[in-house]
C-alpha cells in the first residue's frame, strides 16, 4: 500500500495513508526512543504541506525563454572563460533535447508544466509532466552513491524552518545543463540547492545553482506554482524523438 497525493490531500494528517502497523510502530518507537521537545530543547522541524499537483504554466509565472528565469543584468549567470568558450561554440542543432533527452535542474523546475509532489517519511517525490521525469529527494541522511552521475543527480533533503531544503549533486556533464535557451553547459560539479515553502495557496521555490567548472559565482531565481486543477492527473509526456528533432531542419547550420 502506498500513500498517494490524493490520499494526503483528502486527509491533511500527513501519514494517514500509511499501513496501521507501521504507524503504530513509529508511534511506539517515538514514545520510547525520542525525547520530547521539552527534554531536549530541540524543536521538531515544521513540515510544510507540499503534497499535490502544482501548476507552473504560463498563467502562473512568466514562461521560460532566453531571458527567463535568467534575466540579463539581474541574475544571468556570470560565466568563466571555460563557460564562455563552450557557449561560443555551442550549436543549437546538437542540443540533447532534440533527441528527447530530458531537461534537468535548474531548467526543469522552470518548465511551464504541471508537477506533482508526494511526501513520505523518508523521501519526497517530485514528478514532472515535462519529459515524464521523477526525482527522489532522500530525507534519511543517506550519502550520494560513490562515483555515480545521472541526468537528475542525487538529491538529499531536510526540513528547515517550515521549508524543504534540497541539495542535488552528481549530475552528468550536459552541454545545455544550465539552461534550455542560451547554450550554457553544466558539469559534474554542478550543485543545485532548492528551498520550497508555502505562502498561502502558493508553492514557492528559491533555487541556487553553483558550478565552478563554468560559473564564476552562484546564481539564483525564485518562482512559484499554484494548485493544479482539482482532480488533475499528470499526463504521459511520451516525448516523440522524430517530432522533437524536426525543427532542426529549419536552422541555418552554424558550421557549414
Amino acid at each position, binding site marked *: 500500500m502506498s500513500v498517494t497525493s490524493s490520499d494526503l490531500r483528502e486527509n491533511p494528517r500527513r501519514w494517514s495513508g500509511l499501513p496501521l502497523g507501521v504507524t503504530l510502530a513509529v508511534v511506539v518507537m517515538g514514545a520510547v526512543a525520542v525525547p520530547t521537545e521539552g527534554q531536549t530543547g530541540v524543536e521538531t522541524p515544521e513540515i510544510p504541506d507540499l503534497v499535490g499537483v502544482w501548476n507552473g504554466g*504560463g498563467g502562473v509565472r512568466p*514562461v*521560460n525563454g532566453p531571458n527567463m528565469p535568467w534575466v540579463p543584468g539581474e541574475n544571468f549567470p556570470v560565466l568563466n572563460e571555460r563557460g564562455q568558450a563552450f557557449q561560443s561554440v555551442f550549436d543549437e542543432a546538437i*542540443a540533447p533535447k532534440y533527441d528527447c533527452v530530458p531537461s534537468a535542474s535548474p531548467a526543469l523546475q522552470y518548465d511551464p*508544466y504541471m508537477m506533482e509532489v508526494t511526501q513520505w517519511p523518508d523521501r519526497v517525490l517530485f514528478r514532472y509532466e515535462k519529459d515524464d521525469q521523477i526525482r527522489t529527494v532522500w530525507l534519511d541522511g543517506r550519502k550520494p552513491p560513490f562515483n555515480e552521475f545521472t541526468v537528475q543527480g542525487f538529491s538529499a533533503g531536510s526540513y528547515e524552518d517550515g521549508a524543504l531544503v534540497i541539495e542535488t549533486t552528481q549530475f552528468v556533464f550536459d552541454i545545455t545543463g544550465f539552461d*534550455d535557451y542560451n547554450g550554457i553547459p553544466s558539469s559534474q560539479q554542478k550543485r543545485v540547492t532548492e528551498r520550497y515553502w508555502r505562502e498561502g495557496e502558493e508553492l514557492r521555490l528559491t533555487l541556487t545553482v553553483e558550478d565552478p567548472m563554468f560559473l564564476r559565482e552562484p546564481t539564483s531565481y525564485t518562482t512559484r506554482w499554484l494548485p493544479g486543477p482539482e482532480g488533475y492527473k499528470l499526463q504521459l*509526456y511520451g516525448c516523440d524523438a522524430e*517530432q522533437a528533432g524536426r*525543427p532542426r531542419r529549419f*536552422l541555418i547550420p552554424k558550421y557549414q
Partner: protein
Amino acid sequence: MASGSEIEIRLLEAKEDFVKALFWTMAAAAVMAIVITGMSVSAHHASGPFYDSEKRVEAVGTVTSFVFRNPHSFLYVDAPVDGGETIKWEIEMGASVMMSRRGWTPETIKAGDEIKVVGQPSRAPGTFGMCCAELTKTDGSPIRP
C-alpha cells in the same frame, strides 16, 4: 433639454462603455489568439533561431496530417501555388500536453481539411516550416477545439 451636469454624466457613461467595450474586445482577441494558434509557444525551444519573426507567410491548402505529440505537434499542409506546383508546409505547434488542456485532440484538425495558415517562415533556405501560426478555415472563421 439636458443640463450641463447630465451631459457630463452621459459623457462619463459613454466613456465607461467605450472602455468596457475596448477591454472585452482585447480580452476576446487574446482568447481567440490562444484558441486559433493552439498554443504555438512550445516552451521547448526558442523560436528565434528557427523562424524569422520579422516576416509573415501565408498558406492556403489541404491538411495532409496533424501529428499531435510532445514536445511539439506538427501540422502538414499541401498548398498549391502558381504554376501548378504544391508547397508542403510543416507548421510547428505546441506540446500536445499543453494543447489538450485547452481542449485540442488529435481529431481537432483532420487530413483533408481546407485551412489557412499565417505565421513566421523558417530560416533555412529551401525549407517551408512555419511557426507561431494563426490557423483559420479558408473563409477566415476560427478553428476551435
